[in-house]
């Protein structure tokens, strides 16, 4: 089975907000070293799935397995300690802290022993952050904030990187830059990336495989190029939406 070599596998997960079901029977997996994307419209439950992986909110039924370990019931900070990092929806950088302090917060797990080395890697990936090192997070532009959010996640030396809509509200050129950085990261370090996106075209171009989510249900899955060619996907997400 594919689950055996999967780094992250989400099996039959259902998540509720009160009595309202946000996810129903979601089964998704990401193998080590691949970029997987989850596309869908607003309110489809993409971000809910992302947060469910972190136990905020917790899955009511089903299992979430990371590297052979059931993490469904773990508290969020222990999930982070298994080296799952995320750049959450809305970026959620610390606005009053400087870029450097934000990156230090990302390295909270490691007592700063790898800090210099990791900071250099982040700056290689996003040179803009280096120019802004003493600037407060809240004063960065949207694109820089997104770079910072991804950089902060990378500081945790993750084995799995969860990205929630990194393209949200950014100019096409910046989106291209960020997607290229993700691609490069995956290629050079073999980092597994789970990408949630509304920007279906860009996400599918970037990813190896993709899932399509509608109203909390995964309706389609397959290799990115197949999804890109799929008439239904094209009709729903790509036609007219292409940048």
């Amino acid at each position, binding site marked *: 089975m594919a689950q055996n070599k999967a780094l992250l596998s989400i099996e039959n997960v259902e998540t509720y907000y009160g009595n309202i079901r946000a996810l129903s029977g979601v089964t998704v997996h990401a193998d080590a070293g691949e970029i997987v994307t989850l596309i869908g419209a607003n309110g489809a439950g993409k971000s809910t799935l992302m947060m469910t992986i*972190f136990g905020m909110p917790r899955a009511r039924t089903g299992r979430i397995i990371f590297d052979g370990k059931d993490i469904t019931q773990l*508290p*969020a900070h222990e999930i*982070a300690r298994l080296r799952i990092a995320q750049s959450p929806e809305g970026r959620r950088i610390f606005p*009053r*802290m*400087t870029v450097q302090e934000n990156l230090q917060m990302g390295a*909270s*797990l490691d007592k700063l022993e790898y800090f210099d080395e990791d900071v250099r890697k982040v700056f290689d990936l996003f040179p803009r952050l280096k120019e802004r*090192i003493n600037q407060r997070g809240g004063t960065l532009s949207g694109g820089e904030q997104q770079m910072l959010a991804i950089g902060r996640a990378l500081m945790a030396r993750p084995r799995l990187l969860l990205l929630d809509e990194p393209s949200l509200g950014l100019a096409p050129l910046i989106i291209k830059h960020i997607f290229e950085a993700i691609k490069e990261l995956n290629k050079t370090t073999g980092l597994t990336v789970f990408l949630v996106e509304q920007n279906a075209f860009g996400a599918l171009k970037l990813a190896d495989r993709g899932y399509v989510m509608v109203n909390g249900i995964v309706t389609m899955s397959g290799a990115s190029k197949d999804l890109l060619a799929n008439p239904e996907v094209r009709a729903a997400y790509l036609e007219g939406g292409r940048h």
Partner: protein
Amino acid sequence: MADVQTSNPESNFAKAVKEGLVAAALALGLFLLIVGFRTDQNIRNELVLNQRWGLLAIFVLVAGFGRFFLTAYVTPWNAARAASKRAAVAKEAKEQSAFRKSFPRIGLALLFVYPFLVIAILAAYNGSLMGGLQGSLKYVDNFGIQILIYVMLAWGLNIVIGLAGLLDLGYVAFYAVGAYSYALLSSHFGLSFWLLLPMAGIFAALWGIVLGFPVLRLRGDYLAIVTLAFGEIIRLVLINWTVVTKGTFGISGIAKATLFGIPFTPGPGGFANLLGLPNSGVYYKVFLYYLILLLALLTAWVTIRLRRMPIGRAWEALREDEIACRSLGINTTTTKLTAFATGAMFGGFAGSFFAARQGFVSPESFVFLESAIILAIVVLGGMGSLVGIAIAAAVMIGGTELLRELEFLKHIFGNDFTPELYRMLLFGLAMIVVMVWKPRGFVGNREPSAFLHKRKLISSEFTKEGHG
């Protein structure tokens, strides 16, 4: 007067001296007859002319130096501020001026010599050492110790509110726990102050955790309501648990603190006796002054250290974004509880000091107004800024103490006027003025705890008001 602002500091200084002298001369001419001489009736109903050179000198000096400082410092400063606002470039990351950099150090040095300075000045004024000693009681006790207690409390609360962003309206409860711990344990078991001081801190920290658990999931307004209730619960328990706390009567005759076993009592074996000094109550007050000063500095030192450690960073990150914290692997439960416990611990220290100083504790001292004043000091000073908070405490507490002194107001408003009654009114007015003028407190800048090449201030223009 209306000449163009000169950028040359030398000429500016000379100009300031000149204007200061002119102002002093004007004041002399103006006040010589109004203030310098005064006619009084003596017993035989004759008019006698009193000469008041000292008072006149004060008027002249205030006018002269006031004008000097205005011209030399305030006007250029205002002009520079206006210019920098016009420029509006590079608002962030202003270099600290030399004055700002050295201000905490100067302030600290002043605090350390303050009691001796007061005694020396008063001794010179009264012409005798004894007069200086007795006269200094008021300044060391009512001003020095009183302000420093609030500085310490506000710095302790700053850990909870300023760093961790948890709005705590019941902070006075921990103060009460510390005070009653010391009062009860010392009167029942005769334990010494130095043993009970850390114990009071530990008890208060435990109560901090007790409060912390139920409010872990609360934030903002909801947290404020629960902490407010917690403060009231502690106070009501103190009032009603009469078997232990003697209710509203309070506990009196609490043992005083000793200087490593040397008591501050008159007679043989006492501090004054051992050092061959004249008997006076001042030594104990001066000792208490240094004790609270050191306790307050301990609070500041711990705060500064913690800010650079993972737990302090976690507090600050928690204030900014709780969800981001959790996904970065920070255990928000322990982070919040340590913030509550650490803040409460310093409240407990201050409480046990308070009990030792007063010799009497009653629930009266731990009403909600106290929590509100401490919170007001933290907010006025600028959340997270130790210097700002210290200034705010000096202004608020020293200001209300000063209001007791304002006898001259009776001449304006009539003899029925008692300034004390208007303290809270003025207190509130001052707060409104400060909040309009500086919405983020006196020092709204947050100094980064990590920096690459040089330390830069983060302008308050960019910092949000607390949203804890």
